[in-house]
């Protein structure tokens, strides 16, 4: 059974059709790419699956259970993590606090712990701190743990987003243009990290990217989206050579 399954999802903004008849199947450990021109509705699909919008039609199943219409934090807690295209970090918080906060759904000390600093709370907080530090090490930014995020270099902010997303112990990770704004060297490092975490946690990854090279190298399967509809789907090679795709989207801009 597939891990994430989207069935015939359609969404309208007012009268405007944003996504039409979208289907998706992602198996555990699989990397799935989504490409398409600007405004094709890629991020909308992310937002629909992660619960920011509720789709007008269709169903979304995670582990066989419908998550359609659930509130975003519950979907996230069910094992679906994401990063954002334009970084969404919390500007006044430190790096470590970011990763710790992503453990929110696993906190059991409750309000009494929050108010009265119980023994249970300090134990739990210590445990979370330890786990978070490990993730920071993995992302290669443990030396910046106490820095407030606005002081971080851009690459480190991207890594932090990834580390934060991993902290919710996801089964599937949504990456929205994880290398946007990075130079080629940083991009290569990022690719390494993505591969590494994918292997280490046996994660499924759903990836939106503009850079063809990244998508083609990482993905097991690729979908192409144009005006909210999937026009081509298959192995990277197939998609790359599909004339419809080249016509509609890639054109001359194919970078290899």
């Amino acid at each position: 059974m597939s891990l994430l399954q989207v069935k015939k999802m359609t969404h309208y903004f007012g009268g405007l059709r944003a996504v039409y008849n979208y289907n998706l199947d992602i198996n555990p450990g699989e990397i799935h790419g989504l490409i398409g021109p600007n405004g094709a509705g890629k991020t909308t699909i992310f937002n629909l699956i992660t619960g920011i919008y509720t789709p007008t039609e269709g169903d979304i199943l995670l582990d066989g259970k419908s998550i359609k219409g659930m509130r975003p934090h519950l979907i996230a807690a069910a094992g679906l993590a994401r990063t954002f295209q334009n970084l969404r970090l919390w500007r006044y918080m430190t790096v470590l606090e970011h990763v710790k906060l992503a453990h929110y759904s696993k906190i059991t000390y409750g309000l009494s712990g929050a108010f009265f600093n119980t023994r249970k709370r300090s134990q739990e907080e210590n445990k979370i701190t330890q786990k978070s530090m490990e993730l920071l090490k993995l992302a290669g930014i443990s030396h910046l743990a106490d820095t407030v995020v606005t002081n971080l270099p851009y690459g480190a902010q991207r890594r932090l987003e990834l580390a934060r997303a991993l902290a919710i112990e996801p089964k599937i990770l949504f990456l929205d243009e994880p290398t946007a704004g990075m130079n080629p060297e940083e991009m290569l490092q990022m690719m390494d990290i993505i591969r590494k975490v994918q292997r280490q946690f046996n994660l499924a990854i759903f990836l939106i990217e503009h850079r063809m090279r990244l998508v083609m190298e990482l993905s097991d399967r690729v979908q192409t989206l144009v005006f909210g509809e999937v026009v081509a789907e298959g192995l990277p090679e197939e998609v790359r050579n599909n004339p419809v795709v080249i016509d509609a989207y890639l054109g001359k801009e194919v970078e290899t």
Partner: protein
Amino acid sequence: MKPPIDNSTPTPRKGIRRLWHSFRQLFAQTPLLGWLFGFLLASILENLIGYPLARVLGLSKIPVLFGVDIALKTPLLLPATLLYDLIIYIIPLFLTVRYLTPFANRLAAWLLRAPMWVSALIHMALLFLVLYLWTGINDYRVLVAKLMMVSIIITLSLNVVNGYMGEFSCSHPGFIALGAYIASIITVGFFVGGNLKFVILPAYLAPLVFPLALILGGVVAALGALLVAIPSFRTRGDYLAIISLAFMFIVKSMFENLEILGGARGFGDQPNLATLPVVFIWTMLCIWIINNFVQSTMGKALNAVRDNELAADAMTVDTRKTKMVTFLFAAFWAGIAGGLLAHVIRYVNPGTFGLQKLAEVLAMVYFGGLNSVIGSIVGAIGYNLLSEMLRPLELIKWLIIPLLLILVMIFRPTGLIAFREFDLHKILQPKIPAKMEEVENVPPSS
């Protein structure tokens, strides 16, 4: 990791800055305990020789608030008050810091071997002793201290919403009013009677019932906060600001209409239950609990909601619960503060809880500093002290205080001490001379 600091090789400083630097150097090694000893000595001294000394210096009585009010009224007495402050406060403090610091450091270190709460309790007890001795001179000081502590609770609780969660809530006077009235209804109804009369209980029960009355006031205020918390799920920022403003007006209007509580005439005769120790204990409790809350990962969720709600949601943070808890929690403490306030002044009327109060509480929060427990404490104390000390200036006072606040806002837009954690351990620990890392972790973008 700390940002790099050029502290290792002090660049040559000139004039006042050099003086200030050496001044800081001198006191950098004194732990809190040392300061408490100093103040304790000063208050004991004032109790012993304060009055005769004042007479000798030509002052009719001990200057209440460091003589600022006296000096403002009759500038001729300025040297005398300065001399008084020097002898009673500055010299003992200086002496203690000079000679007792090593001992205080050792004692602080020794205390920290036990669980931290032991050390914290001892510090608090010392603090109370200082406060008790200092206010023992004069009832006016008691009143100022009580009002100051109530302000601390109000400011802290508002900071939770406006600073930590970043909403611009204007409903605080409403919460304070709810707490004030509910607590007063209980204490007056059970122990005084008059217009409102339940059963008159024996007076010795009053100190036991009082905390319950305060808590009930807090709970009712928290229930009132539901009216603001629920809309906050859907709307943020400016719309929430006017919803909260509407709430404030509605509460005020409601109490003006409640004839049984005196309506516009107000409601008086509260028994004298908010004594100094009672207010002190509640204030400490409030600081402790609010500080616990904002430092926990659950409390950090407030910052996440403030800085990026979408990301908070995506990181499993239950934003609705967070908002709900925050509003209710803040309102609860505002209610407690209201109950205390009503019993300090021993009279409440709806007119107190209007736009003027709102401007005052907002000023205290933003003056002290957003997102900072210490900031709120400093803000509340600073505003209250300033307000009392400049009293003789009458109108001019209301030019000076706003000007000061504008300057603070221009030069430190988030307040005096913003975005700083109240780290109990760091405050209680001994200050070892070798360590010179006293630099704040203030985000540069603020």
